[in-house]
């Protein structure tokens, strides 16, 4: 058994330490048992033992190792009871002495295996997200359900279905072949970024952002030479640094109007350091470029100091890689800043039909038309944006723009 640190294990602290160790412990138990459900039960049992022991005797220095050992013993006990006979148990004993010596800590590769299994592209996105949060993040079923605004029963069903497919379809528990890693890693990164963005949509769901960042850090530790993982981590940190300045009460605050004093300098420095780490790797990808764009924004102490030339060039690069309408929209915004609103409007009109149902495209057109002094057209664009917006904060923001335009239009008529 691992050494015991002097720390007193309060209930909350035990819970916290357990959760941090959960993914690593579960990953090793999945390899050991070959079955996710059996592994989950064993780790859960170990938690019951841990919460009692740790509170009395303190938290061990290697909590994950402790949980693995305890959970593994539970599994062996179960096998022994089920088999009664002895041959299998002896076989298992041999297997164990080879594979899992007493006190073995978590195996890094196990966690990678579990990440790639949970984020397998043959699973639908909502299932990947649920598995990742539950199995790797160690969130409770109730927490995962609450994060995605579904009932506990619905989330339980989702997890059962996802685990059924893993088993029935034979999704392997291993790290993909080198040739498949780039594609499979993109699937993992997409899951992590979706978790982060779900947390960003609503300020009440901070824990999802924290969890996404934590898991991305784990991924970076496990695969330190993959620049896209670094890119995603930097992107999240640089967004996170400005999260609190993005809103004022329930209202959105545009980048232009944000109080940059409220940006978290510590996170910005960390994000920028990571950008400096992946750039020399010379293997650009969508997350790295997005992170670089945010790094340029964070560099500017005022909106006016923003290096739009660099941002426009990065959006060109991003568009060449992922030519989506949303990237095109951001590119048009950067173009407006570099070459003036006329060029921006031309770029916007070129993508207008592709994004006709996207409220931000119409809001951007409204802003651009307003800068050109074409106020009645600007108002029409904002009204279209208002019709399409869904989020309350977006609706309020657009309504305020229309209100302001109304005042200016009246001044126009009277003046």
């Amino acid at each position, binding site marked *: 058994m691992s050494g015991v640190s002097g720390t007193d294990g309060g209930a909350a602290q035990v819970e916290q330490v357990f959760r941090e160790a959960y993914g690593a412990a579960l990953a090793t138990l999945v390899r050991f048992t070959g079955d996710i459900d059996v592994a989950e039960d064993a780790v859960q049992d170990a938690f019951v033992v841990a919460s009692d022991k740790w509170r009395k005797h303190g938290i061990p220095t290697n909590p994950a190792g402790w949980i693995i050992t305890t959970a593994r013993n539970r599994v062996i006990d179960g096998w022994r009871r089920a088999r009664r006979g002895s041959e299998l148990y002896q076989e298992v004993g041999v297997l164990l002495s080879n594979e899992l010596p007493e006190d073995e800590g978590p195996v890094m590769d196990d966690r990678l295996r579990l990440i790639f299994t949970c984020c*397998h592209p*043959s699973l639908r996105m909502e299932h990947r997200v649920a598995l990742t949060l539950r199995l790797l993040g160690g969130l409770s079923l109730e927490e995962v359900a609450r994060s995605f605004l579904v009932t506990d029963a619905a989330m339980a069903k989702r997890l059962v279905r996802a685990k059924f497919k893993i088993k029935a*379809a*034979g*999704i*392997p528990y291993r790290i993909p072949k080198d040739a*498949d890693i780039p594609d499979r890693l993109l699937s993992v990164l997409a899951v992590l970024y979706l978790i982060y963005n779900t947390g960003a949509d609503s300020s009440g769901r901070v824990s999802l952002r924290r969890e996404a960042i934590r898991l991305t850090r784990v991924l970076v530790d496990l695969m330190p030479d993959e620049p896209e993982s670094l890119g995603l981590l930097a992107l999240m940190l640089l967004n996170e640094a400005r999260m609190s300045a993005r809103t004022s009460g329930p209202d959105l605050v545009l980048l232009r109007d944000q109080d940059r004093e409220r940006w978290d300098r510590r996170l910005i420095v960390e994000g920028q350091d990571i950008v400096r780490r992946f750039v020399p790797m010379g293997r650009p990808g969508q997350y790295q470029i997005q992170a670089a764009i945010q790094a340029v924004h964070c560099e500017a102490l005022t909106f006016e100091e923003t290096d739009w030339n660099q941002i426009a060039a990065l959006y060109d690069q991003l568009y060449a890689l992922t030519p989506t309408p949303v990237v095109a929209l951001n590119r048009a915004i950067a173009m407006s800043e570099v070459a003036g609103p006329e060029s921006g409007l031309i770029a916007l009109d070129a993508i207008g039909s592709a994004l006709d149902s996207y409220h931000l495209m119409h809001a951007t057109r409204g802003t651009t038309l307003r800068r050109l002094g074409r106020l009645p057209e600007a108002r029409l664009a904002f009204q279209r944006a208002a019709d399409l917006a869904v989020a309350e904060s977006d609706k309020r923001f657009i309504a305020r723009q229309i209100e302001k335009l109304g005042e200016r239009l009246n001044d126009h008529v009277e003046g």
Partner: protein
Amino acid sequence: MSQYLLSTFTVEDGVPGAPASPAEMQEFMRRVIALEAEMDASDTFVFGGALHGTDAATVLRPSDGEPMMVDGPFAESKEHIAGFYIINADDLDEALGWAAKVVAAVNHPIEVRPFRATGRVADQMPGG
């Protein structure tokens, strides 16, 4: 070792992306023959085939006495299975790898489904 069904579908009796000219047909056959040779070499190929259209199908339903016979396909659907391979694969990743090769060779969408059980039921009974 597991077995997987890789199947393709017709949509309203046409196969999207099917070869349109004799030259295309020749090229299609060349790709498929090469793929099947590759499957054979790795002991992957179990069985495969292309099916006639649903106008050649007959459905039998259980009833008192003789089963009832009906002309036509089983399901009232726009999509019907057109052809398939059954392959050996260690796991889903391996099956998906082969499915990707089938897609490249035949240029149709492919559904990958694992078998729950294969072979004769008697062979799967305990002690059988």
